[in-house]
Structures are given as structure tokens and as C-alpha cells.
């Protein structure tokens, strides 16, 4: 390329007008068996990528992303757990030496030291040697941390009944039912059922939802008096007329669907 006054430009820009043809280098002349990144090596990478995405899509189809119930801050039965990659921290904070008055040690100092050491690894391990067995301290510390994280994660996960947890927290479709509080049966519902089945018939920890049930007035009357499954008998307190109104109320809510 000519320098100085002889240079030609495209229009008034700084783009040079003399084009050099784009000829890829022939890497066979370089020492060793190297090859061009484009397209030779990239093709191999992308083949791996293609296999990967097929597997990845199979995973997403086979295991739908979980969604739990709408957040309910009053749900005291809920066991909060972080995503799996934070489980080791969660587990660490359970131990005596990392909780209560030692909380700062467990939550800040230990993870801070570990991640700080990871961040500053090039300055802590300054030797020229690269092979793992030639730098035993770095290698063994890394293996130790890996084993520790793996073990903590396992400890945290092994004691959780994941299936029951998923079952208890299944999402419920948002309720579109309106509760007619002026219905004559609502007062009876409020007295006898609301405590367990909830103000919107949505159910609770101890009782199922009353929305979407397909029972007749007589069946509901029978259940209210005699119980069913875990529900003890004699939950209903009131007159025969109120019982009738109560059952009609529950049926009327279900008819809205």
C-alpha cells in the first residue's frame, strides 16, 4: 500500500480507493497442523452447536418450565429453595458455624474468600508451570472447592421431596368466578365453610377448592353434614333451610364457569 501523498480515497472519505483482494491465508504453510477459523474450524464448532440445540430443544419439550402458584406471602407451609446453582450457599447457611452470630462468616466471608480467590487466581498462582500436577496447591484447592460445592448441593437437594413440592404448588388457573355475597347461602358458607375453603371458594392448605366441582345440591348437602375424605362430619352448623341455601350457593358459583 502506498503511503503519503499518493493515496487515493473514495470520495471525500477516509476509505482507501485501492482495494486489496481478499485472499484467505493458506495456513498449511504455518508450522504445525493449523487450519483456518473460517470456515474449517467454525464448521466443526457449529456441528457441535447443531447437535447441542437438538438436545436442548428435546429437553425443553420433554420438561416444561415449572411454574408454581401465584406468590402468596401468607403461605407458611412453603419451603423456599433457590435455584440449584445457589443451593450450596443455602446449605452452607444452615450450619452452626455459618449462621446466627456467625452469619457474616457464612454469608459473606467464606463465599467472599472463595470467589475472591477465583477472581484473583492469576495473581495467587504466579508460577510459570501450567500443568495441573505441577501446581499442586492450586489444583487441590480447586478440587476441594468443587467437591465441597458438589457435596453441599447434594446435601441440600437430597432432603427435599421435590415431587411432593411440585405437586403442592401446582399453578391454579386464575379464578374468573365472582362470589355473590348477597346470595342467601353465602352467610351459611361464611359461618361453616369459609375458614377452610377460603373466601373465594379457592381452597386452602387443609381443604380443596370448591370451584370446578361437579356435584349436585344433594351431594353437597350430604358432604357438609357427613364429611368426605379428610373432611370431618358435622362441619355444617345451622338449619335445614340454610343447608339447602348453602348447597345452592356453591352450585350457583360453579355454574358460572
Amino acid at each position, binding site marked *: 500500500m502506498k503511503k503519503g501523498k499518493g493515496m487515493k480515497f473514495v470520495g471525500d472519505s477516509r476509505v482507501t480507493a485501492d482495494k486489496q483482494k481478499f485472499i484467505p491465508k493458506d495456513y498449511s504453510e504455518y508450522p504445525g497442523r493449523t487450519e483456518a477459523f*473460517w*470456515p474449517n474450524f467454525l*464448521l466443526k464448532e457449529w*456441528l457441535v452447536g447443531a447437535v447441542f*440445540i437438538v438436545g436442548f430443544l428435546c429437553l425443553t419439550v420433554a420438561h416444561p418450565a415449572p411454574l408454581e402458584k401465584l406468590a402468596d406471602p401468607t403461605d407458611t407451609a412453603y419451603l423456599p429453595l433457590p435455584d440449584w446453582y445457589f443451593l450450596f450457599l443455602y446449605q452452607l447457611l444452615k450450619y452452626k458455624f455459618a449462621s446466627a452470630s456467625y452469619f457474616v462468616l457464612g454469608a459473606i466471608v467464606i463465599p467472599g474468600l472463595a470467589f475472591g480467590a477465583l477472581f484473583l487466581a492469576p495473581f495467587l498462582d504466579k508460577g510459570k508451570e501450567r500443568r495441573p500436577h505441577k501446581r499442586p496447591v492450586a489444583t487441590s484447592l480447586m478440587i476441594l472447592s468443587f467437591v465441597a460445592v458438589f457435596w453441599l448441593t447434594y446435601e441440600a437437594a437430597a432432603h427435599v421431596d421435590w415431587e411432593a413440592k411440585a405437586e403442592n404448588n401446582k399453578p391454579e388457573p386464575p379464578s374468573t368466578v365472582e362470589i355473590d355475597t348477597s346470595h342467601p347461602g353465602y352467610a351459611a358458607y361464611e359461618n361453616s365453610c369459609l375458614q377452610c375453603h377460603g373466601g373465594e371458594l379457592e381452597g386452602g392448605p387443609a381443604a380443596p377448592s370448591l370451584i370446578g366441582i361437579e356435584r349436585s345440591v344433594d351431594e353437597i348437602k350430604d358432604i357438609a353434614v357427613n364429611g368426605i375424605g379428610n373432611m370431618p362430619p358435622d362441619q355444617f352448623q345451622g338449619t335445614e333451610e340454610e343447608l339447602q341455601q348453602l348447597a345452592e350457593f356453591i352450585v350457583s358459583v360453579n355454574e358460572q364457569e
Partner: protein
Amino acid sequence: MSEKKQQVSRRQFLNYTLTGVGGFMAASMLAPMVRFAIDPVLKASAGGDMQAVADVSEITTEPQRFEWTVEQVDAWYTSDVTHSAWVYKNENDEIVPLSPVCKHLGCQVNWAGNEDYPDQFYCPCHDGRYLKDGTNVPNTPPDAPLDLFEYEVKDGTLYLGQPVPREEV
């Protein structure tokens, strides 16, 4: 020399394969996402139900505005939305339910909305005017007549469905 030529064609072949594999990766990644994004376009619009609007006895030969409320489900958001229609009986005793939405830019038209035109629908936004049967007055902004609602009369009650556009006059 011949070796060099072969190299170029091999390079081309690799380029094509690379494009193919890259295309496959991009396509398998984007296909579900694009289908996801264009879903509203492909969803069949549900023809709304007929809604009870008014007693037939209330309908006169003079256009009156009737309002009714429907529960509108907008994906995850359900709300009550009020619709309205201008309804009257024409000389053949047929009910004419007109949409109040101006065909120009969607403002609400009013019967006798302008003192100068007591027998026309008037749109305040751009002075659009329509005759009593909904036909747009030539040389005013709208270029089509007002939509007519689908309707039916059951047990003396007028039910309205969706507004249907009419041909240009």
C-alpha cells in the same frame, strides 16, 4: 497450481456447509420463538356472542344511543367494557343498529351532533357526516358508511353481535 484450484473449491464447499449448519441452528432456535410472537395474528378471532341491548319497544324512528356492557377477556386481563350503538326503526319497520365509530379515524359519531345538520350523524373530530341510514355524506372525510351490527330480536329484546362493514357507496 491445480492444487490451489482444488483448495478454493474445497473452501467453497465448506462455506456452503457452514451456511447450512448455521442456518439449521438459527432456524431451530428461532422457529418456536417466531411462532410464539406471531400467535395473535394466527389466532382465529372468536365471533362474540349476541348481547342483549334494549327492549324493542324502546326503539323509535329517531336514532337513540344504547349502551351495553360486556366482559372483555384481554389475554390475562378481564374487564367490563361498554359498547354503544345508534338504533332506530326505518320506514319499513326494520331495526337499524349503527356502529358509532366513524369510518374516518375512529372517533364517536353523534346523531344531530351539529346544529347545522339535525338529520345527520356528525363526527366532531374532522366534521365527518353520515345520513340517517349511515351512508357517508360525499365530500366529508369518511369514505365508507357506518358499520351495521348483526342483530336479532328474541322475546321482544334486541340482541346485537359484531359490527359488520358495508360496501362503499
